[in-house]
């Protein structure tokens, strides 16, 4: 039952205090006001930060946001300043959502919000304001309308035909930061938040007369290739096309996902460009993750959505964009200041499924780039070198033998092999991509390489100290290496045993093939089958115990 006698007026000051304390920062409040300029079709937005006096170090006194949008008439200004502006005034692609933006953002920073505006059809500029003290005095929400323009206003309106000027005056103590700090912070936030409007729609933003350059955290205009060709030096995208993930199939609301991998700064160390690359792409832990946009406006920056850990250094170059539109509003929980949101669980599951392979590939590529850098530097041993160091010492002089089945005599077959060395070298032609890598390890018997052809785990070859010994190459990209070898301690018995096993397999293959080539294909098939079976076993059985399909 609703009791009529319970009805009473809202305690306006308490309500307004709640609204002004929604958690806006100086930057987020100004971004919210710039949203309105964009909705009004502005192509130029000037933000002016005015200090107590003209020196940079003084605290800010007034903030002016001046745009050349379509402007407002008196009623529209009233509506903009009224609490909870009418929903019908917002278009589908509007950046506004609740109709609280200007008031909550404005009062979070200032005690007075002034709006001066004019449309093409208006003859004059109209000025209205809301003032904290006035609301307090009247004990209700009041808008002071049709105010006289003062000298400052007239200066601002010189050569201006239409548009809106919002002035935040009498700044509160919390917003009293130094002018130079405020200019820097606001410029940076505008650059990233509105970069797509600046890039696509020609929006210009100035902060204290200085142009703001757009900053796309995914560097989409630099995307050179697919991640399959990633070499650490260019921006790559993971999916050929962006993927759509459904939020609600009934209203067709969807999120569009794009994932990229930025360049790997350590690779540029030798050229002395590491710092420059780091600074250009802002390769920092705090920047890892998802960049979420609503109607092209960045609303959440570098969140992990709890899908991975920010402390994972191998994801430093990974960035993902999620694009939402107004249709998604009912499916996501977006706060008034548009900086935090929560997705439905079902969507999160799909996002996790979609991105798990990307995250894994990003980590692997970071490792590969590390190895590539080390190899380029030719100085430091790779992690995998130290893993096999003990094996290489112990297996240094091991060589294939020939057993006489009649007598049981065992003889070394090194001489026999050496006689066929050219033939063997031709048969086991080395892939160009790994020549550089193995050149630096010519005294070793167990050599890891970034990848072997046809997904092989191991391959025999000729090398070693005198360049005529059988050596074995192991692929670091094979899941067996990744999931089994890498989990072992450097030089432990298990590593030595596994190394000895693969070296023996290589010696057996070389030993037989140097005499009779009819077994060549069989050994190649054996390696291929074992490599693929191991790959499947490790990928499917060791990784996804909770995967229920096919496990019936």
């Amino acid at each position, binding site marked *: 039952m609703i009791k009529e006698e319970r009805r009473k007026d809202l305690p306006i000051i308490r309500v307004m205090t709640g609204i002004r304390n929604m958690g806006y920062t100086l930057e987020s409040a100004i971004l919210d006001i710039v949203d309105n300029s964009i909705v009004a079709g502005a192509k130029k937005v000037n933000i002016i930060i005015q200090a107590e006096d003209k020196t940079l170090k003084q605290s800010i006194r007034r903030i002016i946001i001046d745009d050349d949008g379509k402007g407002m008439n008196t009623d529209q200004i009233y509506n903009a300043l009224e609490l909870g502006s009418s929903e019908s005034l917002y278009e589908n692609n509007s950046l506004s959502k609740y109709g609280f933006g200007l008031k909550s953002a404005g009062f979070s920073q200032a005690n007075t919000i002034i709006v001066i505006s004019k449309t093409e059809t208006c003859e004059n500029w109209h000025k209205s304001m809301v003032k904290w003290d006035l609301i307090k005095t009247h004990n209700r929400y009041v808008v002071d309308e049709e105010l006289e323009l003062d000298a400052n206003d007239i200066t601002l309106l010189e050569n201006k035909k239409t548009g809106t000027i919002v002035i935040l005056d009498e700044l509160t103590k919390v917003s009293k930061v130094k002018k130079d700090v405020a200019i820097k912070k606001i410029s940076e936030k505008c650059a990233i938040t509105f970069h797509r409007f600046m890039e696509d729609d020609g929006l210009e933003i100035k902060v204290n007369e200085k142009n703001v350059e757009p900053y796309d955290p995914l560097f989409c205009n630099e995307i050179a290739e697919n991640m399959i060709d990633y070499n650490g030096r260019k921006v790559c995208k993971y999916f050929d096309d962006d993927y759509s993930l*459904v939020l609600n*199939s009934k209203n067709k*609301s*969807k999120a569009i996902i794009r994932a990229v991998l930025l360049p790997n700064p350590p690779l540029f160390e030798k050229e002395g460009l590491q710092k420059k690359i780091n600074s250009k792409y802002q390769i920092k832990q705090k920047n890892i993750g998802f960049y979420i946009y609503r109607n092209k406006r960045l609303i959440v920056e570098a969140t992990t959505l709890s899908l991975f850990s920010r402390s994972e250094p191998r994801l430093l170059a990974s960035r993902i964009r999620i694009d939402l539109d107004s249709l998604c509003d009912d499916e996501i929980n977006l706060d008034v200041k548009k900086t935090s949101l929560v997705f439905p669980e079902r969507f999160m*599951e799909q996002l996790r*499924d979609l991105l798990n*392979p990307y995250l894994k*590939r990003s980590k692997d590529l970071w490792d590969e780039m590390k190895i590539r850098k080390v190899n380029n530097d030719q100085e430091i041993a790779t992690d995998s070198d130290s893993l096999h160091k003990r094996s290489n010492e112990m297996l240094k002089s091991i060589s294939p033998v020939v057993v006489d089945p009649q007598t049981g005599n065992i003889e070394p077959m090194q001489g026999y092999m050496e006689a066929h060395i050219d033939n063997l070298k031709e048969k086991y032609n080395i892939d160009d991509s790994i020549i550089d890598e193995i050149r630096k390890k010519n005294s070793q018997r167990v050599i890891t390489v970034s990848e072997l052809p046809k997904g092989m785990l191991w391959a025999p070859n000729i090398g070693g100290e005198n360049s005529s010994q059988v050596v074995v190459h192991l692929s670091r990209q094979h899941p067996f290496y990744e999931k089994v070898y890498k989990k072992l301690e450097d030089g432990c018995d298990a590593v030595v045993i596994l190394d000895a096993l693969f070296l023996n397999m290589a010696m057996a293959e070389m030993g037989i093939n140097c005499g009779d080539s009819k077994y060549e294909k069989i050994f190649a098939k054996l390696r291929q089958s074992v490599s*693929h079976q191991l790959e499947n076993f490790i990928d499917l059985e060791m*990784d996804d115990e909770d995967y229920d399909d096919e496990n019936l």
Partner: protein
Amino acid sequence: MMKTYRIAVSQPGASERYPYVYILYTVNPEAFVYVGETEDLNGAIGRLAGHIKLNNPGTFIKKFMENSNYDVSCLKDIRMIAFDISEHEIFTGEINKTRRRALEYLLHFKILGFSCDDSVKIPYTVVSHVQTQERFISDRKINDICNEIFKEAIQLLPYSEECQ
């Protein structure tokens, strides 16, 4: 009344042990889609049999129970579109399961994305769950095969204007 099942197959061969990617779908009581891969001993039909078991429920039945407010007895007309991918050797055999899974992953997300397409008139929910290794997702050939299958799939699924 005796329980009666109507089973129809568009053409013989679907019980051969070939590699397949398949789409299971329903319209009533709710539109659900499940994308999977198999190289079952009894082909696509064998895999379908596993999915629709009621005692010790098959995966599709489980997904229906998890995602629907209806009782499983309301589930009618479960249909399957199976794409025989044996002409591409890269998918044949247990050793190529990871490639089939990559194809399944790509198709799953294509079908999921299509559910928001303007041509879709019957809203559907994709209930499958895919998990794959990253290795083959960017493989050009697998992506091309997926695109070909996807084009055919949207014409066969009953949800959109594209449906023939």
